[in-house]
């Protein structure tokens, strides 16, 4: 949630984190559209750069907008450890047309979070926050009526819970009571020790995905490549999809939320994978 607030703040006031000259002949001051409008949408920054490129520094890969180096909101130099991630961030910046829409740049936001750590949480606090979500996990909360929805939840969510129980050798279960499922402490410890094997950047990504999908189990399914992003988002929004099938879809609300959730979950998953991989190429000689 605070990611969205920060984005809004960024788009309102000119961010100090871009080392740029004062706005010049581009005419970047907001022009009020129409005459005497009571409220206009917050003025967005115009795209002030032509080219986006990547360069390698000591700490990792950096992004260059024209010849200026990109910086985080707290004015640190923007460095990422992985080249593929840097290319993806550069593509985000390059795909902005006339104005910069920060709310579409999820990977940049995630990198800024990982670099700045504005909530000042250490690794253990992040892990505890992530595992805490298990107590209120979406796929463990079942309804009793309407019967069609209960059936749908059983058919769609039971397999993924069973997969998680088998994969991590834990007991999770599901519940229809308002208090939620009773998660044994050993289950939590297993997840804590599993998450401890990820580095700090990947953990930020994992916690982000969990917060968006409202489910630890679905997020682990994504991280372990067991389900696709589209499927995870569908499972997370199962009740909404059920109601949409019954009552119809409202494009400006349902499709909007669906696209936004898909974008965020995909960005988080990609972020985690790119931050925690290390690729080696083994060339085998052809034996003839």
């Amino acid at each position, binding site marked *: 949630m605070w990611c969205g607030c920060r984005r809004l703040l960024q788009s309102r006031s000119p961010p100090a984190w871009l080392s740029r000259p004062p706005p010049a002949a581009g005419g970047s001051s907001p022009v009020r559209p129409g005459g005497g409008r009571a409220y206009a949408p917050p003025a967005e920054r115009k795209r002030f750069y032509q080219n986006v490129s990547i360069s390698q520094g000591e700490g990792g890969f950096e992004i260059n907008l024209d010849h200026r180096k990109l910086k985080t909101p707290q004015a640190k130099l923007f460095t990422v450890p992985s080249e593929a991630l840097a290319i993806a961030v*550069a*593509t985000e910046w390059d795909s902005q047309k006339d104005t910069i*829409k920060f709310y579409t740049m999820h990977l940049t936001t995630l990198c800024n979070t990982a670099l700045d750590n504005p909530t000042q949480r250490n690794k253990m606090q992040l892990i505890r926050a992530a595992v805490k979500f298990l107590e209120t996990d979406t796929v463990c909360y079942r309804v009793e009526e309407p019967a069609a929805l209960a059936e749908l939840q059983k058919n769609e969510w039971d397999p993924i819970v069973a997969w998680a129980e088998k994969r991590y050798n834990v007991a999770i279960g599901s519940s229809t009571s308002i208090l939620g499922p009773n998660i044994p402490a050993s289950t939590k410890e297993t997840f804590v020790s599993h998450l401890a094997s990820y580095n700090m950047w990947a953990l930020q990504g994992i916690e982000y995905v969990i917060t968006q999908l409202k489910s630890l189990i679905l997020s682990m399914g994504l991280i372990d490549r067991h389900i*696709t992003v589209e499927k995870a988002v569908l499972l997370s929004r199962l009740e909404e999809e059920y109601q949409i099938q019954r009552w119809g879809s409202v494009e*400006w609300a349902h499709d909007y939320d669906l*696209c936004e959730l898909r*974008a965020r979950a*995909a960005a988080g998953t*990609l972020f985690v994978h790119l931050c925690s991989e290390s690729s080696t190429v083994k060339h085998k000689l052809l034996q003839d």
Partner: protein
Amino acid sequence: MAALGCPLRTLRGLLRELRRASGRAGRPSRDTPAYRHIVAAFRAHRVTSEKLCRAQQELHFQAATYLCLLRSVREHAALHQEYHGKGERSPEEVAGLVGFRLPQQPGGKG
């Protein structure tokens, strides 16, 4: 493993999205580092001696995730522009919605 479909389809979808995503019309999308990286990665993983190659599936999953990201960002931005991007109406427009016109007050409001 996730049901991902054919890698060729993912690759083609990715290249299409990248072409749509390039903001400035000047450069062809083939010059962008993203295009080069993706094509190189797909080429590198094409030849493998193992039947079930884990790295290949990892790459395909990453590619499918990135494709989902690009596609949903584009659709989300389009929906935002269409439904939420216009701000409030002015008092004249609001009056015009129901067929009224605001009175002209040459001396300003009393």
